[in-house]
């Protein structure tokens, strides 16, 4: 990743974090809220690979935690793993698949929701299980899937696609 491209990717994550904290978090449709930052990090992971995905996820999470005066590192940890997993998915399994974006966004929204719930629970925050894991999570998955296409298209236009991913490990039959 060149310095210019890295700066552009960082700017994309920064703007997504600002929009998420200041605007999208207040939109509630059927109790769900679209997570534009999560979709952006997934998109960057898919387009640029696991390491940029993890680093940009960490940075985006840190911006959100700072803006919301939330416990520092909480969103960073979730988004680091989301970016890393999306990148690994693109580098290995997703090649040749028809809809890696939708699969990644759907699965990662659910996993990130459960992981964030576990973190908040361990920190002693009072979270309503039914509300966090059922009432809001499934509408959020749907909303994230809806915003995935425009967000991915925008990120792809701004950051571009990595030309080649390292091939997955090959094996040979010995017996």
């Amino acid at each position: 990743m060149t310095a210019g491209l890295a700066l552009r990717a960082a700017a994309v994550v920064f703007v997504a974090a600002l929009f998420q904290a200041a605007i999208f978090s207040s939109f509630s449709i059927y109790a769900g809220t679209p997570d534009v930052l999560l979709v952006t990090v997934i998109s960057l992971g898919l387009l640029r690979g696991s390491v940029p995905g993890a680093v940009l996820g960490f940075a985006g999470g840190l911006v959100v935690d700072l803006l919301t005066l939330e416990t520092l590192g909480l969103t960073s940890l979730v988004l680091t793993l989301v970016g890393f997993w999306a990148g690994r998915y693109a580098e290995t399994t997703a090649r040749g698949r028809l809809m890696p974006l939708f699969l990644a966004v759907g699965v990662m929204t659910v996993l990130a929701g459960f992981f964030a719930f576990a973190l908040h629970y361990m920190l002693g925050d009072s979270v309503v299980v039914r509300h966090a894991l059922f009432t809001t999570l499934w509408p959020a998955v749907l909303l994230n899937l809806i915003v995935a296409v425009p967000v991915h298209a925008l990120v792809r236009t701004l950051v571009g696609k990595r030309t080649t991913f390292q091939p997955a490990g090959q094996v040979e039959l010995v017996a």
Partner: protein
Amino acid sequence: MTVRPVSPTPLGPRGAGALRRRLVVGILVVLALMLISLSFRSGSDGSLGGIHAAGATVLRPFAVGVERVAQPFRDAYNWVDSLFAARSEAERLRQEVEDLRQRAIQNEFARQQNLTLRALLEYRDGPSFPGDFHGLPAEVTTRPTGAFTQAVVVAVGSDDGVRVNDPVVAPEGLVGIVTRVAPGLSRVQLLSDQQLAVPSLDLRTSASGIVRHARGTRETLVLDRVRKEDRVRVGDEIVTAGWAASGFSSLYPKGIPVGAVTSVGQTDTDLYQQVQVDPYVDFGALDAVLVLIPETRPR
């Protein structure tokens, strides 16, 4: 059948890439865990709290800028949304105005009588709203970012005189309490958070209890610890009770509207009534709030 990797060298070009990848994500995860631990342990007072506050202050103009850009679109959305409910809302409000006009006249008589009796008795009282506080208007800059947080960030902070535990209200009623302050920013824990409990009373019967978040719901509240003898009815107004004793007083001054009773129930086995309260404030649509600063606090 047995399989083995084509390239057995662990640190070949691909092995080095994998090591770098694991190293980077490992460092980031450890860094995030360290930040969580330090932030959680130090709260807003420790050294990390200062860095947190400084970072939030630096980012604030960007968030305000984005908020300003989005405001016309938000207004347009709200305008269209309100059009659908306008007719039924107007009819309901007309009826409410009629009722309130009658009550206002009765209340004015009661207020005058109350003032006279207080003067005669030389009655001493705890801090009450709004007389003993001045409201500091603040824009809501950041809203809850997920289902896990019931807090908003407002654009006033320690340099405006805001302190932790200052109550926060909206025109409709009680919003919550300040839990963290930074220069120019404060975090307000909403009443819909499970950790908040507000001593309150039924305005009609003076039945007292504690308003807290109802488990299993998002924004419904319950008035807990109401005795079975108290005759609470659906539609009763709940306001903060406030109290003062031995030099201490409630964090919430008395007289702030909280919500209206939507259901009352009791079982033979329960010690108290189950009173459900619908908050007056729509916590999901907060744009501006008032942070209440005691008049006694030096400015």
